[in-house]
Every structure is written in C-alpha cells, then in structure tokens.
C-alpha cells in the first residue's frame, strides 16, 4: 500500500440475498483526490459509497481507511460524512442548527459550535439564512447547507451521492465549480457518485466506471475518454465509433481487423496485451478524430465509404450521422469550419477516414 492512500477496497463483494450488487472490487483512493464513481442506475456505485460510509456491510473483503480495516465500524463511529441525493437536511432544525448537528454529537461546546458553524455558513455564503427554516431555502441554498453540515467537522473524506441531480442545468454547472474549488482549497478527499458523465469528467481527478457491479475502468478523465478499455466504456461514453471484427494479422506494429465494414488497421504500440490472429476485438475511434472527405485521401489506411443520413447543429460543433456500406451507423463531430467545403446533403456519398494512430483496440472478454 502506498503512503498517500486514504481508502482501499480489497476484494470487496456485496450481495443482497441472491443478487450480487458489487463484484470483487479492488481499488484505492488517494489522499486529497477527487474521485468520481460513475455508471448507470443499478451498477453498484451507490452501494459502494454506502459501504464506505458504513451504511452497508461488505459481504466479503476488507475496506481500509488510513490503513485500518473499518468493516465492523458502525457508521456513527466513522468519520465519513455523506451528502445525500435528497440532502437529508433535518426539517425540524433551522439552517445553523443543521450545521451544528455533527459538532453537538461530538460534544463540542455551545460557543465553539456556533463559531465553527458560522465560519462554514460564511464560507458557503449562506450566513444571511442562518435562522431560516430548511423549507424556506432554494435548491442551491439547501445544497450549500448540506455541504456545510458535512464539512463542519473537517473530515478527511467527504462522500457525495448524486448531490446535484435535483438542480436545474445552470445551477448544476455553478455548483460543480463550487464543489471543485472547495475540494481544492480544503484538500479533503471527495468521493463523488454520479450517473452524469459531464459532472464526473469536469470535476474528478480520476473516474471509476462501473457496470453491473463491476469496475470497467479506472483512470483520469482524459485517459478514459481517449482510450476506453472495454466495449462497455466506449459505448457508455458514446463519443467513439466502434467496429467489431476478427484480428486477421498483426505484424510490423500494425494490427489488421476484419470487420463487416471492411479491413481496418491500427497501431499495435501501446496496447495492453499482445493480440493474436483470430481474436474478436473492437476498434474504437473518437467521433472528433474521424474525418470526412469526398474522395479517399492519399496516405490514409483507414477509409470507409459512407452515406450521409442526418445532421445536428449544437453551438460551435456539428454532428454528422453516416451509414457504412453494411448498414452500421457512425458519426463525426467537427467544427463548422472543418465541414465548410463538403457537400453536406442527406444521401450524399462520402468517405470517412482516420489516422491509424487514433484507433484503439478493445479485446472481447
């Protein structure tokens, strides 16, 4: 175990009766890290967080906090405050009493309690609401109260369970920067559960992607975005075009993949494991790295005849939907300038192409 590890999951499994919510999970969370756990609903991300908070007990394996196993520690003996999706603010207490709650439970004196709570209200810019009822606050203000209530005890780690999901889009973006700044300033480790890719990727240092109780990939947002390691991750992110086929050759640092759309080539450099002919694999290429032309450009090994089937303009970028000869739908994302010289009409025959360094291979399990 490294020195700067705060939390480690070692072979952690969680079952609810017959149902396996979390399958054998091994990963570490560093001190001061902003870690996002991402996946669709029912993937086990919230269960993972709840095990860390002590609200669920692992069926197998060990969870360590600062090196010490915490499996048998009830939640009220851990310092793992959590921010709930519903926020779970106490409606029978006013704002400052909510923030003071955890200090009161720790036996902190009245004056000290008030002083610290006021500091946090000030920091979260909600001082003027100190004696308000929770029901009188807006969504964003409640969010700040919930954060202050958890952070007032100055924990080493803060757990967040989709705290922004109830907010409207504009407020969400504002709160994201509040959270990110807060994490940077305090140096507290944040573990942030979300189903939103934009939240995870814009805030987190590292992202854990889960599916059906399993970790699919752990990495920085950039790593995951550029080189999704499994078909699931590539599909989940939805930002890559995918071609599945059989490896037909691998020599001279170039791997050839036979797909229904045609033979595609990519660089073997940087591949996690050696590939052998006959293996089933999927080539992924980012839709932003896929180019479009009228005639096959010289010097490009990967070219596919395609037919345009649709287009979508959002802000500065355009998404063009295309169909390959075998009927598979792909798309490209480009700025308007990049597309300016192309005859973009529905039904137009074009050529999709990309550099062979931009393709990544994902092996089938």
């Amino acid at each position, binding site marked *: 175990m490294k020195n700067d590890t705060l939390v480690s999951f070692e072979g952690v499994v969680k079952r609810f009766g017959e149902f396996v919510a979390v399958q054998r999970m091994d990963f570490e969370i560093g001190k001061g890290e902003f870690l996002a756990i991402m996946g669709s609903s029912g993937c086990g991300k919230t269960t993972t967080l709840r095990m860390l908070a002590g609200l669920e007990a692992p069926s197998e394996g060990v969870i360590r906090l600062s090196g010490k196993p915490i499996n048998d520690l009830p939640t009220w003996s851990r*310092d793992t405050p959590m921010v709930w999706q519903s926020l*779970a603010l106490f409606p029978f207490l006013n704002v400052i009493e909510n923030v003071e*709650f955890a200090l009161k439970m720790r036996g902190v004196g009245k004056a000290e309690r008030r002083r610290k709570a006021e500091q946090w209200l000030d920091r979260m810019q909600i001082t003027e609401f100190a004696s308000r009822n929770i029901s009188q606050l807006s969504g964003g203000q409640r969010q700040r109260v919930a954060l202050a209530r958890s952070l007032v005890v100055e924990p080493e780690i803060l757990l967040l369970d989709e705290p922004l999901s109830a907010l409207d889009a504009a407020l969400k973006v504002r709160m994201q920067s509040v959270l990110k700044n807060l994490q940077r300033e305090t140096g507290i480790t944040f573990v942030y559960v979300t189903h939103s890719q934009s939240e995870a990727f814009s805030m987190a240092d590292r992202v854990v992607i889960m599916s059906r109780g399993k970790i699919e990939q752990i990495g920085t947002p950039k790593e995951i975005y550029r080189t999704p390691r499994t078909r699931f991750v590539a599909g989940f992110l939805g930002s890559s075009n995918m071609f599945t086929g059989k490896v037909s050759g691998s020599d001279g640092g170039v791997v050839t993949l036979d797909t229904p759309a045609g033979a595609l080539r990519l660089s073997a450099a940087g591949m996690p494991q050696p590939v052998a002919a006959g293996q089933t694999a999927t080539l992924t290429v980012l839709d932003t790295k896929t180019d479009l032309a009228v005639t096959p450009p010289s010097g490009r090994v990967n070219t596919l005849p395609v037919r345009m089937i649709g287009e979508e303009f959002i802000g500065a970028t355009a998404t063009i939907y295309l169909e390959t000869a075998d009927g598979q739908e792909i798309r490209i994302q480009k700025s308007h300038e990049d597309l300016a010289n192309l005859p973009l009409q529905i039904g137009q025959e074009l050529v999709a192409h990309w550099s062979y360094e931009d393709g990544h291979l994902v092996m089938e399990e």
Partner: protein
Amino acid sequence: MRRSLTLYGLTFSLPLLIWQLLFFVFPLVFLVALSFWTVKNFRMQPDIDAVNWVTMYGRPLFWQAYGITFAMSAAAAALVSALAFPCSYAIAFKLSETGRRWAVFLMVIPFFTSYLVRVYSWQIFLSDAGIINVMLGWVGLGPYGLLNTVGATMIGYLTLTFPLVVLLQLFSLAFIDRTLIEAAHNLRCGRLRTVFAVIIPSARVGLVIAALFAFILSFGDFVSPIYLGGGDPTTLSILITDTTKSGQQWPRAAVIALTMIGTLMAVAFAAVRFAYKGRTK
C-alpha cells in the same frame, strides 16, 4: 379564490352539515341555554339566571373533581404515550412489511369488543377474589385491594386509549424519511440518541396528536372511574351523573359539561399549537 356552490357539491356536503347542525351545534346551544335555567320544586323552568354557574364554581368539591380529572387524564396521556412509543417504534422500524400489517391488525382487534365489556373483564382480574389475587395467593402473597383504586382507573384509561395511540404514533413514525435517520447516524449520532434527536422531533405532530386523543378520551370517560375506580375519587363525569340524580339539577350538570368542553377545546388548541411550533408549512 372564492368558489361558487354547486348542486353537486351540496349533494354530498349537505347531509353532514345538517347532521352537525342537528346533533352538535343545536345541543350545544341548548346546553348553554340550559345552564341558565332554574330548578324550583324539582322542576326545571326556562330562565336567565347565573345562579348555577355561581353555585358550581363556588363549590370546592367541583374544583377538586376538576383538578383530579385533569391530572388523571394528563397522567394517562403521558403514560400511554411513553408506553406506546417503544411499541410503535418497534412496529415501524424493526418489523418486516408483513409483520407490520399483522401488528396493525392486532391493534385494531380491541375495537371489535365494546369498551364496557373490556372494563368488566378487568374486574375479573382485579377484584379481591380475582385472577391476579388468586395467583398471588399461590405464592403466599395478598390479597391486595386492586379494584376501586386510582391505579385501576388508569388501567381502564390505558385499555381505552392504548391501541389508538399506538396506531396514531405508528402512522407518524412510518412517514419519517429513513435517510434522515441514516444522515444522523452518519453525523455520529448513536442509535438511542437518534431516537431523541431525530425520530421524536420528526414525528412530533403525530405524537402530540396521539397524546391529545388519549387526554380527550380519558377526560370525558365515565366507565373506568366508576367500574374500576369505584367512583372514588370523583371525576367530572361522575359528578355530572351525581348532579342530575340529586334533585333534577340538569342546569348545574350543564355547567359541568360546558366547563369540560371549554377545557378540551383549550387543551386541543394548545396541543396543536405546540405540535406545529416553529413550522411554517
């Protein structure tokens, strides 16, 4: 916004309105009028005379009965709330869905039998030669005078109010947001402390209303103080029957009844205010 009355709305609301008018408002007005009538030679005559109020409020016996009735029903409300809470807490938080349904069913069963019958059956347990004293006799104890005591009256009050109080408490506990409890645990609030710091404040309205019902039912109860308490000490309900029996003093009984109604309204008002204190919605 003011809505106009429709024939459809009236069809359903009118019977209840007429009922309330006939059997609540009208008798109440009559009761007020009656309290100003006078009795001459054992015959009542319509009058406007405050003599009944002056007589009753001038009697120490009346105030003694008032104090005792108030104290006993307040004690019953507090006792039944304290005894019912662990029970409704266990039903709400410790039982499975099926178990909870059975518990609710079991709490409804006592209502199948008349309260009077249940009180009579307590006599069989509590009398000098009753079940409890016989069993105590086997181990060489007693007999104790259990019947015709304040304790026996209390048992009667609990018999009357316990199932209802459990049900009312249960409904308020069942609606507590479970994440509030988890949040409290997560903020280092232990299990027992959470009961007092989170669960009771969350369920406050329901708990106060349940205690209020226990108070109202006990305050006006006639059956337990007479059949289990033996009529001693005299409660207001017993005082009413005594007053009517002695010389047709219906107007004085009306004074007692109106005092009781006034007291219950004041207590109910205070209780509801206390329950919703500090809430804006």
